[in-house]
């Protein structure tokens, strides 16, 4: 057993040589993926990467700061349409439009986060649900700019003349941003703001009494969380080279929260595990659904997705409210303490 002797060691993200090795192996594995997996799996992995970015944002906002948001997809749509309009209508470069998308989503988050200063819990959920529907309605209203219900074709991103049109090049882009997003999240949580978020989540009144400005930190959490959503939304529409409101259904916001619950609230690993788990489940449903449709009834495919995702969240809430991360910690503890491991 090794002990941490100073503060820096205690706060380090990567604590021992084994973790460095695992990390490098993981990066090499990801980098090699496009060479030996099929297009379908590559698409799935890209989608997981985008979901991871988005869920990290939600994790900061909901998992760490305790401000429950069911309008996350609405903020993704803000980022997506900002980037889509800037690149398609004004011909800006993707590298300028991506930060603009992040900023626009962040500002939208600030506006709809304002009620959080007065309200919490269920009231905030309602405000964020309202935010989603108002954003989508606005997108549909301004048809001349956003394309409305017809959607808007979006160019693929370019780096110095090299267009990222292949699936593998886009895969690298998404993985790189997802990786950066993970590091940034980990680091935000080690700052003053990160600790303030956790204090607000645990007891906002006590936090305020301790001198944490609720006003400032709640809005910061909304801003940061929505910046992630904006980036994820922009990546999503540039991947499909098309932006439409159908890419941002309301229920997706619920699934992002579901990913947090399945993965484990208040943990960066949890956000990643949850995103992977639910996206894999989706993939399974899209494979099994059509087969079931053929055997049982035509509508089985549509209902299977809703029922399984709902059931997974229900089962996790009842049997493992701390999520996959908790299971992972138990497994890790088992091997760490072996041969004297004990239950729980």
């Amino acid at each position, binding site marked *: 057993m090794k002990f941490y002797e100073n503060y820096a060691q205690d706060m380090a993200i990567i604590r021992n040589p084994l973790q460095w090795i695992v990390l490098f192996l993981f990066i090499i594995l990801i980098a090699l993926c496009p060479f030996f997996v099929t297009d379908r799996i590559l698409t799935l992995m890209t989608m997981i990467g985008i979901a991871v970015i988005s869920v990290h944002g939600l994790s900061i906002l909901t998992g760490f700061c305790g401000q429950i948001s069911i309008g996350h997809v609405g903020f993704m749509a803000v980022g997506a349409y900002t980037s889509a309009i800037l690149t398609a209508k004004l011909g800006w470069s993707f590298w300028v439009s991506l930060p603009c998308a992040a900023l626009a989503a962040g500002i939208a988050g600030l506006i709809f986060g304002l009620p959080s200063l007065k309200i919490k819990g269920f009231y905030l959920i309602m405000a964020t649900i309202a935010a989603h529907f108002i954003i989508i309605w606005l997108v549909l209203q301004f048809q001349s700019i956003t394309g409305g219900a017809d959607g808007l074709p979006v160019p693929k991103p370019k780096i110095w003349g090299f267009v990222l049109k292949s699936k593998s090049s886009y895969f690298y882009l998404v993985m790189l941003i997802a990786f950066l997003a993970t590091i940034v999240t980990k680091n935000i949580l080690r700052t003053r703001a990160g600790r303030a978020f956790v204090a607000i989540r645990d007891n906002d009144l006590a936090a305020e009494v301790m001198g944490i400005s609720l006003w400032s930190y709640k809005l910061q959490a909304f801003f940061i969380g929505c910046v992630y959503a904006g980036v994820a939304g922009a990546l999503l529409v540039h991947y499909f080279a098309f932006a439409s409101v159908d890419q941002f259904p309301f229920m997706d916001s619920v699934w992002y929260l579901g990913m947090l619950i399945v993965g484990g609230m208040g943990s960066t690993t949890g956000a990643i595990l949850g995103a992977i788990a639910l996206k894999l489940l989706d993939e399974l449903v899209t494979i099994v659904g059509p087969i079931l449709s053929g055997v049982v009834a035509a509508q089985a495919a549509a209902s299977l997705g*809703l029922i399984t995702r709902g059931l997974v969240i229900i089962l996790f809430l009842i049997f493992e409210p701390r999520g996959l991360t908790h299971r992972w910690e138990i497994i890790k503890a088992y091997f760490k303490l072996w041969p004297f491991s004990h239950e729980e």
Partner: protein
Amino acid sequence: MNFFLQLVVTGFALGMVYALVALGFVIILKCSNAFNIAQGHFVLIGGYLGYTFLVVFGLPIWATILLAIASAIVMGILIERLTLRPLIGQPELAIIMMTIALSSVLEGLATFIWGGEYKTYHGVLPTLSVKIGGISIPSEPFIGLIVSIIIVAILLLFFRYTKMGLAMRATAEDLQVVQSLGIKATTVYAISWIVACIVGIIGGILLGAVSGVMIPLAEVGGKAFAVVLLGGVNSIGGAIFAGIILGILENVAAGYLDPLLPRGGLAHVFPFIVMIIVLVFKPHGLFGLERIERI
């Protein structure tokens, strides 16, 4: 002027149904402190049940309502027992997520059983057209109005005069006192879910008669939330008042403003705009109690 009055009257009738649906939400919230996001999906199930009983089985309206109440009781017991009871004592987010997951499962079941198709039973209900002056009240909203008033009256009497109703009100007031008096809190929770299912399903039958049933009928839930927030989450009278106000406002706003907006759809977002305004300026609604928190 006639156009305006027409809008107001239809809005009033629809608002009463919204109030009925919102009541289910308020009752659960008061008794068990759970926010039921799935309320709109009870309405959806209700609409499809109405179609099944009225059209597929060809039953009269009174038998439909009785059967609907019976199914609502079964549904309420199952939901409370299987999903909400294990979560007693868990944080608010867990309970809210549970009801959201429940709404997803209910929507999946509705899609599976009824195919997610547009079903309508327009004209199956008895026609009661009423004319006051120059305004005629359409038959279906009028039936909706009458049935909602009857059910709301029954509920108010139930809360006032029966033992169970008193127990439920007492639980809303103070859980510990109630338990020390020998009232089983779990029974109270179960009953509150049953009542919420009943009002949701009956609301669904009534709304389905007006506009037909399809998966988006569940969005009535959104309207019910707006009603509840406007009236104050823990006030039954507030829910009824706000339901009527919101029904009228929505109908009038949609009637006058939709032609001005290029793509319409204002009735769809209107409740959400009301919600944001209420949440920013008067978070506890018109008649809600402000809760004072202590550390």
